[in-house]
Structures are given as C-alpha cells and as structure tokens.
C-alpha cells in the first residue's frame, strides 16, 4: 500500500463525498432547532428524496426534474411530520421516528408496485448527477484529486451552509425566524404566526433532506436500494448538537464526523475488526460532545475568574 499524497487526496475526496449528504441533513436539523423543533424525521425525508428522485429519473430521464422530485418529496415528508407536531401537537420524537419507518416501508412497497422489483432498483436509462470539473483545478496534482468527482449538489451543500449563516444572522426573515425559536410565545403575542413559521421551516428542512437523498441515490451510484440512508439522518442529530445548530458549527462537526469515519475506514486494514472500526464515529461523536462541554465549562470558569479580578 502506498500512502502517497495522491492517496491522501483520494481519501479526502471520498470523505467529502460521504460527508455532504450528512451536511445537508445536519443543516436541516440545525434550521429546525432554530425554531424550537426537534426534527428526527430527517432519515425518512432522505429516503423519500432518494426514492422519488429515482422514480422521476426513470420516467423523465431529466436529472433536474429528478432532483426536484427528490426535494419535493423530502419536503412532503417533513411537512407531514411538521403538521403533526406543530398543529396537532404530536411528540416530535414519536412522529419523526414514525415517519422514518413509514418511509422505509412505503418506498419498499412502492418499489414493488411501481417497478415490480424487490429491494433494489436500477436501470441503464437512469442518469446520474453530473460531475463538475473545475476549470484550471483539475490539472493540479493534489487539489485536482481533492475536487474531482463532485456533483453540483456537493458544492451546493457547502454553499448552503454559508448562505444559511447569512440568512439567519444578517437578514430580516432570518432574524424573525430565530426570534420564533427564542421565544415562540413572544413572537405569537406580536402577531407572528409561529406555527406557520415552524411549519415552513421544517418543510424547508425537508428540501435539504431530499437533496441529501438525491446525493445518495444519484451522486455516485445511480440506484435505489431499501435502507439506502443507513442511519445518516440519526448521525445528523448528533452532528447538529455538536455544531450547536449554527450553520458554520455544523460544517465543522460534519467535517469531524467525516474525518472519524475516514480514520475508521483506514483502520480496517489493521488487526482491528470492522465491528470496532465502525463504532469509531459514534464513540468519537460522544467524546467530541464531552470535550466540547468541558471546553465551554473551562472557558466559563476562566471568564469568571477574569471578571472577579
């Protein structure tokens, strides 16, 4: 095995690709947290996105219509959960988890109804997301590899993190959205339709999940297979906590998760068994959360000491 810079670039490149779906979903989680909603239906919205983008892909052959179908179906799932949670006051955890199993079952079921196949669907006529070649970058040795094989949605994930930051902290609608989350009663008392804001936000978060689903089903391999999300929606919850629901923090925490996943993969070729290496990202997430807590506590203590002098 050779650990050339090129190999490391490939490793980093594939880590980016594996991280962007999680980043999109974690941004979704962060947005919902900002309006005081705990959205655990990310996984279900992602599955829906992955499935319906493939359906649209098969029937229209258009990649952009597929992405739209994925986004819309993600929105539909989160919108449904949002309606139950916001308007019918259902428990967010329960309704969200239910939506996840509902979508897993529904997509498998529709797979057999629409395509008459069980478990997995792929077809030569399916088109995949185009890969972007950055002009001038592709030739550079390390950098070129680092940015190779990324789709517009991969770039979009990073751009969205920045845009969401600007939206939340610099714009008027973002200000109002945060206000709803800080004190819904106060917002309501001034005539803000809090429920509508919450519903809109969670529905929009579904769009992000749907895009994440598109990345899974059309980013690298163009197919739908049941349970294609493999728990990424739940990872996003942890990444969101670690990133403090801040778009830029979320960017960091997803990067951290991707990094620990890469470390786990690299360790597979050692004496460690994969059952061990696969638990690394989860254990690392807990450790990071603990470290973050200890760090903030330490900072608080420092500030307290400073203020007393």
């Amino acid at each position, binding site marked *: 095995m050779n650990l050339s810079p090129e190999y490391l670039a490939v490793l980093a490149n594939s880590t980016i690709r594996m991280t962007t779906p999680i980043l999109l979903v974690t941004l979704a989680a962060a947005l919902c947290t900002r309006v005081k909603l705990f959205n655990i239906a990310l996984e279900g919205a992602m599955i829906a996105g992955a499935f319906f983008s493939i359906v649209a892909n098969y029937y229209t052959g258009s990649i952009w219509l597929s992405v739209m179908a994925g986004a819309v179906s993600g929105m539909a799932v989160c919108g449904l959960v949002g309606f139950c949670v916001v308007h019918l006051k259902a428990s967010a955890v329960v309704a969200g988890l239910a939506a996840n199993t509902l979508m897993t079952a529904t997509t498998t079921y529709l797979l057999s109804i629409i395509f008459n196949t069980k478990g997995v669907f792929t077809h030569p006529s399916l088109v995949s997301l185009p890969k972007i070649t950055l002009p001038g970058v592709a030739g550079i040795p390390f950098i070129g590899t680092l940015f190779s094989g990324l789709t517009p949605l991969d770039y979009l994930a990073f751009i969205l993190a920045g845009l969401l930051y600007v939206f939340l902290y610099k714009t*008027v609608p973002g*200000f109002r959205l*945060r206000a709803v989350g*800080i*004190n819904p009663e106060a917002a309501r008392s001034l005539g803000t339709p809090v429920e509508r804001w919450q519903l809109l936000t969670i529905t929009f978060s579904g769009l992000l999940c749907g895009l994440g689903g598109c990345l899974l089903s059309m980013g690298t391999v163009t197919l739908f297979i049941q349970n294609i999300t493999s728990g990424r929606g739940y990872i996003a919850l942890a990444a969101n906590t670690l990133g403090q629901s801040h778009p830029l923090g979320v960017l960091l925490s997803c990067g951290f998760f991707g990094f620990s996943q890469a470390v786990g993969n690299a360790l597979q070729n050692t004496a460690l068994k994969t059952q061990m290496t696969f638990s690394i990202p989860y254990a690392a997430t807990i450790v990071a959360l603990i470290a973050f807590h200890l760090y903030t506590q330490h900072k608080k203590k420092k500030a*307290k000491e400073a203020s*007393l002098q």
Partner: protein
Amino acid sequence: MLLHMHQISKSYGPVTANDQVSIELHQGDILAIVGENGAGKSTLMKILYGLEQPDNGTIYLNDRQVVFHRPSDAMAQGIGMVQQHFMLFGSMTVAENVVYRKETRKGLLMDHRRNQALVKELSQRYHLPVDPQAVVDDCPVGLQQRIEILKILYQDAHIIIFDEPSAVLTPLEVEDLLKTMEQLSRLGKSIILITHKLREVMAVAHRVVVMRDGRVISVSDTSETSLEKMSYEMVGRQIPTRHMTPPTVGTPLLEVTGLSLKGEPGTITLHDIHLQLRQGEIVGIAGVSGNGQSELIRCLTGLQAYDTGQVMLNGTDVTQASAGMIREAGLAHIPEDRYAWGSAPAATLAENALVGAEGRHPFSRSGILNLRQVNAHAAHLIQDYDVKAASLFQQMASLSGGNAQKLIVAREIARKTPVLIACEPTRGIDIGAMEYIHGQLIEKRDQGDGVLLVSSELSEIMDLCDRIYVMFEGRLNGEFIRGEVDEKTLGLYMLGGNRHAPQTALG
C-alpha cells in the same frame, strides 16, 4: 367613544369567567379593573386582545364593531398588551426586541444602526430611557417592562393593556411606571390597568371597574370612590384591620455567616452575607428585585451551591446541604415563582400539595404512599385557604394565578416548620386572600416560629416585619427595627444607602 366591550360572556366548562361584562374606555383614559382572584379580569383582557374568543357579546372600537381572532388583529387596530410574563426575546438586544416585525432593512438585510437610532428616538420621545444595544437577559425586570411598553408604542398602539404590571416591580419602579402611564395618557394614549394594588388605582386611574365572580359590580370615577369602598365591593365583606403584638424573641433559628457567591459574569454575586432569624419574629429582606434576593434564597434553601459561608438551621449545620436535607432540618419555602419552582402545572392539585412531605408519616410508610391521607391533606389545604377549585384531581394549571399561589402558601405554612422563608407570598393575590395569608404568617410568628419574608412590596415589609434587612447589589446594606425606620429611609437604602445617589433602574 374609543372602546366599548358590550355584554361579554365567557365560560370555561362549568366556570363562568365573564358574565355579561360591559366596559367603556375614552381616549386618554386610564381605566382600572380590580377584583378578587378568579374574578375574570384576565379573561376579559384576553378577549380584548384576541387571545380568547367571547361566547357572547361584542366589541366596538370607535363605534364600529370589531372581531379579534388573534392578537395580531387587535394589534392592527392599535391595541397592545403588556403581559405579566414578559414576551421578550431574551438573547437579543433591546433594539431588536422593539423593532421586531417592523424592522428597517437594507434590501433583505437588517439595518441594525437605523433600528437602534429609531429605538433611541422613541425612548426619548416617551421619556423611557433604554440602551438599544443591551441584551435583554441582562436587563433588570423594571427595564424589561419598559422595553415591553416601548415595543407596544413602536407598534403604534393607542390602547395599552397592563395586566398586573406592578406585581414584579420595586416601589421605585412602580413610581416610574405610574408616571409613565400618566405621561402616556397625556400624550393621548388610553390605558387599561388590572391590579390588586388599590393605592395605584387611586394614584393614576381616572375610573375604576370592580369585578366579582365574572360580573361588573360597579363603575365609578376614582374621585368618587375610596380604598375602603373598592375593597368592600371586591371582596363582598369588610377587611378587618390587624393588630400586631410586640415580638417575644427566642433563640436563633437561622444563622447565616459570611455567605458569598461568585456568579458568572453578568450575574449577581453575593458578598459576605450575615443574617439571623430568631424564634418569634418576622424578618424582612427588602430590596429592589434583582439585587441578589433570589440568589440568596436559593442558597439558603439548597437550590444553589455557594462559595463560602456557613448556614445553621435550627441547630443543624446545613452549609451546602441539599434542598431535601434543609427541608428535613425544618425549613419551609414559598418560592417567588409559583410556576417555575413552586408547582408542577401539569400535575394534579393533590400531587402539588404533597411535595416535600411524600416521605413522611402519615403520607407514606417505607416508601409506599397512603393515598387516602394524601388526598385528605390536600382537601384540607384547599378548604382552609379558600382555593377556588373544582376537584383535587384537576391540573394545577387550570387554577387562576392567585388561587395557585394560595395553594402553595397553604402547603408550606401547613408544614409547621420552625423556619419559613416566604418570597413574595402575596404576589398576584387579592386583598382578601392577602389579609388571610398575612394573618397566617403572624400566627406562625406568634407560635414562636421564625419567618423570613422577602418582598419587593415595601408596605408588606413595613406592615409585617419585626426586623428588616435591606439588600443592595448582593450585600445586606442595612438592618432596621420596626418603627425605627420610615419608608423613605428604606427606599434610600434599597438604592445603595447613603453611599450612592439615588438612580433609576436603568443604572
């Protein structure tokens, strides 16, 4: 006529909160609504503000019928409400709070500088000084209320509803508030004021409506009524005047030496607190709220750890002990916030009446509850304190605020502990019930127990306390014996004694 609420009725299941209530308001009026707990005042205002829908009756604004489905409808018609529980975005700035929903913007972006300038301008116009850039969570309560008022003015309200605005304020802040109301009325704003403090009514209101059991009992000009008349109409009986015998003081029950608490930046720190409470006396802690009273009481009751100091309770060293241990050692505690600490709103009345005693005879034996005793005890409390409740098994949250308070007071006094810490025990309680609770506190003292009374209500402190400490900026700033001090001196000490010149709550 500006506003006419005509024949408004509203019931909640079997409870009739409003029964054909009519009120009228003219421009520039200050209209006070008074009445005992559960009389239906808040309900009426909620209807006016679009928070509740009346079962019957009509609202006329400028002689035109209006229907408010939600607060924004009311606000669009120029009606604003300062609610008891402030409706502010704590982690945002004053300016952001005030301009919310009417922000100036540059394109999609917030124009922070312009917003701050607007708020500054508004605050100067109405003589309500604020710092637009301050974060609301860091502002004292009085200032937060001022922000609330500014917010409503910024929304162009011309009718402003205050529901018990002074319950959380210090005397000086109350003075400020009353001045503000008069000023607003001079500037053409109309005000509806709900309060249990009849002195405030006499001070600022032009007219007063008295309610009882959901009905209007009387409407009169303030110049034509009196404190006695109003309280008689409210409660339906004469409030007796109270006599306090001089205290027979015994051994110390609560001794605090050198208690200090270093808070986090931006919060109150306690400096070297020494205090003593003896058998047979009521000791008061007066002070502008937000000067460390809450922290001190949390330290004394085991709800917060402190850095240094020793606390002796009834001969036991309870330094840094847990709330449970301190309760066991003989302390009862009426907390200042009835919903945050004092009760579990979603639990039943019976469950709320049990807390702290669940581990004792006769309510339980070796961990197993005796539900018959538990329920009987709760029923007694409800009966003795005249809590208006339908069932032991209804939720605490369905009681009116005053009635919830009464149940908490009842629970704590009934523990018959040597020491009672009572924080704002009569906040939001009507004068009849207040009288009863005061009587109970005095009776407790006369039985030889000690009561530590924390109140921002100076008259309550002056009336009840044998000895008074004044708290300012985390220090006990003075100690006085009843009768040796007047309200003015106390007020001075509450603002930093002779060391500082008096200043407004803005600081």
